[in-house]
């Protein structure tokens, strides 16, 4: 029923495919129910965002934006000789292009706000990546990253120490503690026989790894396979197939609109947009909830080349397509009824030293590690999410290695695919491969790592030095997972997708950007001074009391604290006083008359008298 006047909207087949019905992200029904990403901010971490373009300006969030290349708050792209810095603007348009402005196109989450972090237009360091991943992380909900290490079929790289720390910090502290959502593109190295398990961002448990399929649902020539792929969505394919139509920059040769956006770069922002729709439906979804909902709702479809395998928990996965196609309707309906998954549980094996030669194919080196019930008792881990294997291997030609991991169920993941172009002589030095193919399966049991050399050397040359297994999951049992699957299927009719239904959401944590609650050295010094003064004053006071006591004889009788008048207490004039020996009244009833405080008060009744002034009145008092 929605009809936008944006001139290119009819060509945005990924949103509403009229030529091949069903081959789109299935978003229009969600929009019809007013789920458009309202209240959610997506940030494009890229080469800048031209936020003055008509499709972006009304949704632009300056608060979430920054330019790390020029160190200023404005992420406006800088024109270059290659007309190349339009990338971030195109991604931003896919996510949040404003509809009905007669300009160009419509974004998946056109009600969301869009920010930009310009970081790719210049040299990049680990520390800059770390800054980018946490920039304005209480404003930005979703970080869309359509970039990564070189997809040349020979690079093994990923976040370094600071980037890793920032991803981890983002999921813990970002978005009021619900966790920043990091969406990453899986890679464009298909024609170089590359594989996204050699990309550390794709392997990270903190990221949502998104691949691309063309309009026909097939893996495009540029796409990469890997065991850590979570899901796929649409993008361009070969020349005969349509690309993604989206907003573009209007600098250089740009017109403000393009029909030719493609690559996994075009797929990741669509996923980011769909996650924005989920977060509007249920703002308190955690970063792990988002991953779970993708796994539970991504749709397997007919593609014989995809080599789908169904795991023990009933989830189908393919190294080409992850758990399948993202479907906005299914994602949002699932989000609406989703209650948070249990805490993240993990188990890490010790580093297992092997020092064993890797044989040439068809022979294999098989090593295994058994995870017992006792091993998992401490964390409570029962069912799996991500499984990671960290290896150190020497080999004169790294690309000849092939690594397969078998979960206890027998589910196989090709975690280290051979790469013909990778002739690096340094092997792997503590590289972490990961797989999501065992998602929902039981964690207990024996994990097998099978390594072989598929090169054409005469003698085996590689050595598996050591390896380590790390499991991530939760206390959910297989029964819990099946129950959740049933709950979601029940919600897919859309019956909960209206404003009248919403599960309660916790408010989240108020996390200050700086540590404002810790004591500064100056505060500590002040406290110490105040403390010293208090001690000094206490000692002085006690000494004064003691000396005054010594000067007041009690004539052999014990000194007593006089009982003070009720009226004085009521009137608030009951002053603290030194003990007096009021022999006459010591055991008698409390007198009704004026209190004996006069013994310590001056003539005006206010100023205390020094103890020696009392001596003259000794007989009256004690």
């Amino acid at each position, binding site marked *: 029923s929605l009809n936008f006047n944006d001139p290119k909207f009819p060509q945005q087949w990924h949103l509403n495919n009229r030529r091949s019905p069903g081959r789109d992200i299935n978003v229009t029904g969600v929009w019809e129910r007013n789920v458009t990403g309202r209240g959610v901010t997506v940030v494009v971490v890229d080469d800048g965002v031209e936020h003055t373009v008509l499709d972006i300006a009304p949704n632009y969030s300056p608060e979430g934006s920054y330019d790390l290349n020029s160190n200023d708050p404005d992420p406006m792209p800088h024109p270059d000789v290659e007309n190349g810095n339009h990338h971030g603007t195109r991604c931003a348009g896919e996510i949040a292009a404003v509809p009905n402005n007669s300009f160009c196109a419509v974004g998946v989450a056109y009600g969301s706000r869009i920010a930009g972090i310009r970081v790719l237009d210049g040299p990049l360091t680990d520390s800059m990546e770390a800054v980018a991943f946490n920039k304005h992380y209480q404003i930005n909900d979703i970080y869309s990253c359509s970039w990564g290490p070189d997809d040349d079929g020979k690079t093994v790289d990923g976040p370094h120490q600071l980037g890793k720390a920032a991803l981890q910090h983002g999921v813990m502290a970002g978005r009021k503690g619900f966790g920043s959502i990091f969406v990453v593109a899986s890679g464009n190295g298909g024609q170089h026989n590359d594989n996204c398990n050699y990309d550390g961002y794709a392997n990270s448990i903190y990221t949502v790894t998104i691949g691309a399929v063309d309009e026909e649902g097939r893996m495009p020539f540029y796409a990469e396979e890997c065991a850590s792929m979570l899901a796929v969505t649409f993008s361009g394919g070969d020349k005969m197939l349509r690309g993604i139509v989206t907003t573009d920059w209007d600098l250089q040769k740009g017109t403000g609109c393009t029909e030719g956006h493609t690559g996994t770069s075009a797929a990741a922002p669509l996923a980011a947009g769909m996650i924005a729709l989920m977060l509007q439906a249920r703002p308190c979804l955690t970063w792990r909830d988002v991953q779970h909902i993708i796994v539970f709702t991504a749709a397997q479809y007919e593609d014989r080349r995809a080599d789908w395998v169904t795991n023990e928990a009933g989830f189908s996965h393919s190294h080409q397509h992850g758990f399948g196609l993202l479907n906005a309707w299914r994602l949002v309906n699932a989000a609406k009824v989703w209650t948070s998954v249990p805490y993240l549980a993990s188990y890490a094996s010790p580093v297992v030293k092997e020092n064993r030669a890797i044989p040439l194919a068809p022979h294999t080196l098989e090593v295994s590690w058994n995870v017992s019930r006792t091993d998992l008792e401490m964390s409570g881990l029962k069912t799996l999410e991500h499984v990671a294997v960290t290896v150190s291997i020497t080999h004169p030609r790294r690309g000849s290695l092939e690594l397969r991991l078998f979960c206890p169920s027998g589910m196989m993941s090709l975690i280290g695919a051979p790469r013909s172009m990778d002739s690096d002589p340094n092997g792997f030095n503590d590289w972490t491969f990961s797989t999501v193919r065992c998602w929902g399966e039981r964690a207990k049991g024996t994990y097998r790592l099978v390594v072989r050399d598929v090169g054409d050397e005469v003698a085996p040359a590689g050595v598996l030095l050591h390896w380590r297994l790390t499991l991530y999951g939760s206390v959910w049992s297989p029964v819990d997972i099946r129950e959740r699957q049933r709950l979601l299927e029940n919600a897919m009719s859309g019956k909960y997708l209206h404003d009248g239904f919403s599960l309660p959401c916790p408010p989240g944590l108020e996390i200050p950007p700086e*540590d404002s609650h810790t004591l500064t050295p100056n505060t500590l010094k002040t406290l110490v001074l105040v403390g010293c003064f208090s001690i000094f004053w206490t000692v002085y006071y006690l000494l004064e009391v003691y000396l005054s006591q010594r000067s007041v004889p009690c004539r052999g009788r014990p000194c007593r604290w006089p009982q003070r008048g009720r009226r004085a207490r009521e009137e608030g004039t009951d002053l603290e006083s030194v003990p007096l020996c009021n022999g006459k009244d010591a055991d008698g009833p409390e007198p009704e008359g004026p209190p004996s405080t006069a013994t310590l008060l001056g003539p005006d009744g206010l100023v205390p008298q020094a103890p020696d002034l009392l001596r003259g009145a000794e007989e009256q008092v004690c």
Partner: protein
Amino acid sequence: RAGPSGPEGQGPGALSWAVHLDSPGGPGQEALEQWADTLAQAAGLVNAGRIGELRGHYLFVPPAGAQQARQAETVRQQAEAVLGAHETVRWHSEQRLLRRTKR
């Protein structure tokens, strides 16, 4: 500090070190920053500020003009010697350029 806005303002082509500090005098942010300033100075560098939101992580850079005056290798040797030897430095790494491509 090297710049008003911390490590974001650093030219990435220049020498720089990421340093992860253990807090010397308690958990206070100000104490950490003061300690980072002192340590950077000892290493012949300047504390350019905290790295994003990462607590205890700082970026150290050579003072303006110093890199031209001294050979990069000399700067590197002094920095590595001081940072590598100090017990409050949990981890440090010279920042290298990363190759990242749009996809």
